[in-house]
């Protein structure tokens, strides 16, 4: 199972810089990042190579942060591959809540990251369907 770090941030200049600055100082590399914003604040989701280290660095700096289980799967970087994965999950009634993706250095693969209500069960399902959910270590090695 992979982990992402969620961070609460006010919607004003310099907040993202502060967060990424803290991570850089702690020697953490970013793999992917999304921001869900509402009017005055937002939640930054970070996929990093060292989630534990990132989490500790942020908490130590007084930043409201949370380490959460998240599912990351490798898919072929070709038309229809994400559709295939999503349909398989939809058929089994899995509701995807918050998703983002990024390309790996090997250009034929993409990583699809998403949150579900029951990550453990979803991981089982994905394994049965032949997908390989990535661990933190595998994400770090990408």
């Amino acid at each position: 199972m992979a982990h992402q770090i969620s961070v609460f941030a006010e919607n004003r200049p310099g907040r993202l810089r502060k967060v990424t600055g803290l991570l850089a100082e702690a020697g953490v590399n970013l793999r992917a990042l999304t921001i869900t914003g509402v009017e005055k604040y937002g939640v930054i989701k970070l996929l990093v190579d060292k989630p534990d280290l990132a989490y500790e660095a942020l908490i130590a700096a007084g930043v409201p942060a949370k380490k959460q289980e998240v599912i990351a799967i490798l898919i072929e970087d070709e038309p229809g591959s994400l559709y295939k994965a999503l349909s398989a999950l939809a058929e089994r009634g899995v509701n995807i809540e918050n998703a983002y993706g990024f390309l790996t250095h090997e250009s034929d693969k993409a990583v699809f990251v998403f949150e579900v209500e029951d990550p453990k069960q979803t991981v089982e399902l994905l394994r049965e369907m032949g997908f390989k959910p990535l661990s933190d270590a595998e994400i770090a090695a990408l």
Partner: protein
Amino acid sequence: MFWDEEMETLPRDELKRLQVERLRQTLVRASRSPFYSRLFKRIKLDPEKVSSLDVLKDIPFTTKEDLRSNAPYGFLAVPKEEIIRVHSSSGTTGAATPILYTRSDIDRWADLVARCMYMTGVRKGDVFQNTMGYGLFTGGLGFHYGAEKLGVMVIPSGPGNSKRQIYLMRTFGTTVIHILPSYALRLLSTFEELGLDPKEDTQLRIAFIGAEPHTEEMRRRIEEAYGVDAYNSYGLSEMNGPGVAFECPHKNGMHVWEDSFILEVVDPETLEPVPEGEVGELVFTTLTREGMPIIRYRSRDLAAVYPDPCPCGRTHRRISRIMGRTDDMLIVKGVNIFPMQIEKVLMSIPEVGTDYQIVLERENYMDKLIVRVEINAKFFEGDVKGLERLRRRIIEELRSEIVVTPEVELLEPGSLPKAEGKAVRVIDRRG
């Protein structure tokens, strides 16, 4: 249980009769002072004929400004040689106003303070350390005389010098302490520095922490850290000083000694009485004061009266914590709002951090109330959904307390300036 059982448990109708009689005597005495003799002539009041408390509503309020502009002797109701003590208000705003006491005033005051202390369980044999300032300020000497009247050993340590405070506590086995709540919390670091645990290494069992406003949470922290019962109290120098109202062991509201003071609660805008149980400005009339009787004094302190009787058996009504000062009152969309009401709601929600800010703006001629709160990092769940749920909950709980629907902004911990008093927390941009 009671210092003065008969008086403390006097049935309400008898208490009222006593108030009428004492009010008549007070008005007679007051009419000998330059200020009230002029006033009573103007409103054609004959104090001798007073037979009901209803007379009060025909007498104008006495304000701080009246006391100040008639200082030092405009309110003196006895020959000056009868005065044996002067205290004064702290004078945080403007010049200090002197309060004059006869020997009997000092005795009665001490007796009321003894009544308060006894109510919380202080007994002969206790050792009382008074860390409040002595001098013109009433908090130090008021408790000092009360404790002596009760018959406990008093250590008049006065404020400051934390190591000496702890040394005195340990040397004399202090069991009861009078201390500013903020100082009680600061003193903990000195205990720690000395490698001492106040719970183990002192014999403290009771603390009086009413000298400055504090939250229920602060009381609990003091009680836990020191292993004591901490009691809130209320007093103002214009009404002697400490001993006007005090918590009983139920710690649910402070009994106002209605044999010594008449309490009214009024709307600070209209000056009409508020319905019982609602927050308003406390107005006091002295009932036994000789040197300087004061009628219908506007305290500028805001609190509510608890209408129901207290399980302790005392018949004197209770008031809530002081919710703020009339000077702090905000009028938003025509509704009176006290910052303390907002603070109370915010502090009851654990997901909210300690700092907040109240911003008032005007948009299209409409008042807008914005409450900006820091979130408590510990409770961050990692998603917008949870935060929006929290934001809606804060709005809902504030609305049910203050009637007005505020906007609520969630902030990162530490993004607001640390508040050093109430002023910083309210920003009024309505011009």
